[in-house]
């Protein structure tokens, strides 16, 4: 790191606790995951601490394991757009980032929804573009499992291009509302009709006139989440921020260098794409206190039943007869198609189940761990454990060392799990001059230091407009 470089400002976001076992619902402090009050409290804590934005994940089919609804984690979520639009009414500055799938939606409707959210929040909308393909999720939608896995980023890319063309289709057109003259819009072309667009590619054949004016941010901020090579390339080409998962400083630095290095190919600068990994945290009064609390949280996150269920995802077979406090199952995993667990992205990470089980056995033998202990150890995602001072140190160190541009914090308690961080860590970061004490601007682009993008007007060919 160059000594001359000014200290980077840290970006912080609040991930509403999700439906993974990271979220501890058995704790007495755990509130509703669906009542609006929980979202209001969570958002207001984040805004009080001057966070950049709130982040909301999405799921489109309840997870199943062994042919039954998976019941050990939080189940149930609200609709993304609806809850974010309502939160716009109880916050003033906090960015509102919603995860919306590019497979089981169509560009015209999604563009309408994000443009609307941007208007209703005065420029605070962001879209985390995710892909999926599986026929299991498709059973809830008109087209079923229509998309081959290897085409999912191809469709996402076309989808985002189409949506961009729609967001920009009112470029130069403003509501003038001149009552005396009787002219509602200004900047219209001779057709007198706003919003013309046409998209023709492998995925979409659409044309017409978009019916929402350009929002305050021009376009909503675009996030990409996903670690694959295709995902990184998609982010480098088209996203404003990337939501990643890298636990160590070194892994974070490698990822950061990799994705920022891809930007040049698209004529973009390193500052045009923010790297914002997910991070969990546990605070304590002393380092020892924090470690003990973290250990306790881990045991809450991985009950015996959760440990068995997690092992079943790796072994791809029924392990209900095994004791979670006993040794690892003495059988081999079932290779081939995953049949035990459905609707869960993490299953994809077990690309070589035999190798992973071998690692687990080595770990168990070396440390004398039970099945549950192993799962606790291998699924540990607590990145920041310590006192408020040490966590502030760590966060600042990661950002200044280019392992990230900030973090999307994932508390394990709904809705108040962020309060300690907001009250204890944020003031330290503010004192050090690396985190804002007041919002300088009003839009999420302002908070993230992203310029309003140049409109990408659909290219005119033969008087028709075609986005490529």
């Amino acid at each position, binding site marked *: 790191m160059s000594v001359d470089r000014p200290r980077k400002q840290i970006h912080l976001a609040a991930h509403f606790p999700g439906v993974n076992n990271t979220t501890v619902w058995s704790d007495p402090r755990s509130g509703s995951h669906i009542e609006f009050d929980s979202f209001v409290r969570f958002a207001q804590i984040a805004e009080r601490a001057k966070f950049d934005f709130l982040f909301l994940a999405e799921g489109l089919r*309840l997870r199943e394991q062994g042919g039954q609804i998976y019941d050990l984690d939080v*189940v149930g979520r609200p609709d993304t757009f*609806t809850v974010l639009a309502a939160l716009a009414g109880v916050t003033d500055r906090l960015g509102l980032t919603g995860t919306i799938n590019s497979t089981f939606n*169509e560009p015209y409707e999604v563009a309408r929804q994000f443009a609307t959210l941007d208007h*209703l929040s005065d420029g605070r909308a962001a879209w985390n573009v995710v892909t999926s393909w599986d026929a299991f999720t498709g*059973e809830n939608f008109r087209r079923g499992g229509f998309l081959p896995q290897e085409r999912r980023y191809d469709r996402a890319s076309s989808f985002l291009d189409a949506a961009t063309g729609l967001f920009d289709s009112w470029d130069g057109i403003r509501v003038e509302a001149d*009552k005396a003259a009787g002219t509602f819009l200004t900047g219209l072309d001779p057709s007198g009709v706003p919003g013309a667009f046409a998209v023709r590619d492998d995925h979409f*054949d659409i044309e017409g006139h978009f019916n*929402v004016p350009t929002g305050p941010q021009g376009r909503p901020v675009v996030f990409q989440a996903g670690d694959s090579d295709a995902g990184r390339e998609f982010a480098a080409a088209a996203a404003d921020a990337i939501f990643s998962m890298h636990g160590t400083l070194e892994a974070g630095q490698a990822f950061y260098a990799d994705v920022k290095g891809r930007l040049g190919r698209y004529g973009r600068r390193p500052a045009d794409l923010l790297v914002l990994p997910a991070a969990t945290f546990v605070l304590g009064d002393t380092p020892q206190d924090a470690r003990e609390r973290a250990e306790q949280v881990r045991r809450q996150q991985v009950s015996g039943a959760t440990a068995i269920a997690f092992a079943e995802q790796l072994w791809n077979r029924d392990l209900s007869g095994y004791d979670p406090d006993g040794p690892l199952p003495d059988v081999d995993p079932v290779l081939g198609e995953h049949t035990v667990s459905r609707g869960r992205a993490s299953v994809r990470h077990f690309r070589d189940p035999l190798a992973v089980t071998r690692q687990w056995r080595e770990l168990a033998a070396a440390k004398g761990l039970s099945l549950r202990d192993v799962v606790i150890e291998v699924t540990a995602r607590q990145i920041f454990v310590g006192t408020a001072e040490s966590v502030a140190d760590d966060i600042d160190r990661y950002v200044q060392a280019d392992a990230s541009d900030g973090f999307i914090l994932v508390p394990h308690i709904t809705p108040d799990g962020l309060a300690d961080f907001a009250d204890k860590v944020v003031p330290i970061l503010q004192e050090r001059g690396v985190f804002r004490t007041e919002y300088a601007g009003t839009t999420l682009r302002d908070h993230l230091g992203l310029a309003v993008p140049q409109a990408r007007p659909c290219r005119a060919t033969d008087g028709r407009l075609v986005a490529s």
Partner: protein
Amino acid sequence: MTHLHLAVALDGAGWHPAAWREPSARPDELFTAGYWVDLARSAERGLADLITIEDSFGLQSTDFRGPDGHNDHVRGRLDAVQIAARVAPATHHIGLVPTALVTHTEPFHVSKAIATLDYVSRGRAGVRTQISPRAVDGDHVGRRYIPDFDPAEPPTPEVVEVVDELFDEAGEYVEVIRRLWDSWEDGAEIRDAATGRFVDRNRLHHIDFHGRHLSVKGPSITPRPPQGQPVVAALAHAAPGLRNRPIRFAAGHADLVLVTPYDRADAVDLVGAVHRAGPAAHVFADIVTFLDRPGETGAERRARLDALDGNEFGSDAYVFAGSVAALADLLADWQRTGLSGFRLRPGALPDDLNLIVDSLVPELQARGLRRRSYEADTLRGLLGLARPENRYAATTQGALV
């Protein structure tokens, strides 16, 4: 005399195309939250049962077949479900009934959106389901063919068939969103620390809907909403040659059917047709209103707006211009045809809404036709509808295997 129910239909700057040019109009704020919050609060001040919010998949146009290039009219709109969600935290009693377009959207998404609207409004959600029969709207999505036709012409057999199919699909759509609302039983979230189970999965249900147009597995990702079943509304629109099809859809699937009688006798016919066609709990008549105020009659305002627009205002609904007392007389008279309420479409916003709230409602209260305070916390409550049983509750044993 029983109370009549009152809904206010919000759309842009009001239902007259020149309404945005009124001195009190706020056309430059149509795309801001504050505009809609103010309108919803005004309607709530008038103790209305609900507001509806219009929507469409294409630009507003005087031409059914496509954009008309009219820059002297409001063009552009926001997604109605989100407008409703945005005003929910700023209101406390009034029902929120956005339009959801069904022809090009996913029932799974719309079901959870309205369930979530019910959560964020604490039981005040409804949805007005509407088809998109315009070919140009279909081109925006590109997934299905809809023939280009002119509704002013007698429909060809092809058009009759397509529109029939769209309503048929809309019926399946409403059935799917209703089943999804029931796909979680009340109390399915058990948080049983002893067994580590967050939900009782026997109380979550695949809906396994397989229709001619739609197949949806379920369950919803969103738990059963506070009202159990948010209120479903549909406009049983008069459409030449197709008149009965919209009525059969609305009466067969909606709790609240909106009709557009052009006079009292027509109201009698329509109410009868709706009740013959299905079990809808409520039938409201739509009326566009231009009310008299000091210094200007409603008729004068309408004529002034017509002159600005260069066209005589026409509507699918009855257009009333006159005094508050005359409108109250009309509502009381039409109520006797069996209508349970009215959806008033203010000619100009906010003026005609404020006249409804500040003049018409007190007049109706004085006649014993309107509530003097909100008597319920949910939209179903305001409409006198009980919270329904869950259709899957009786099948809990061995439900989801």
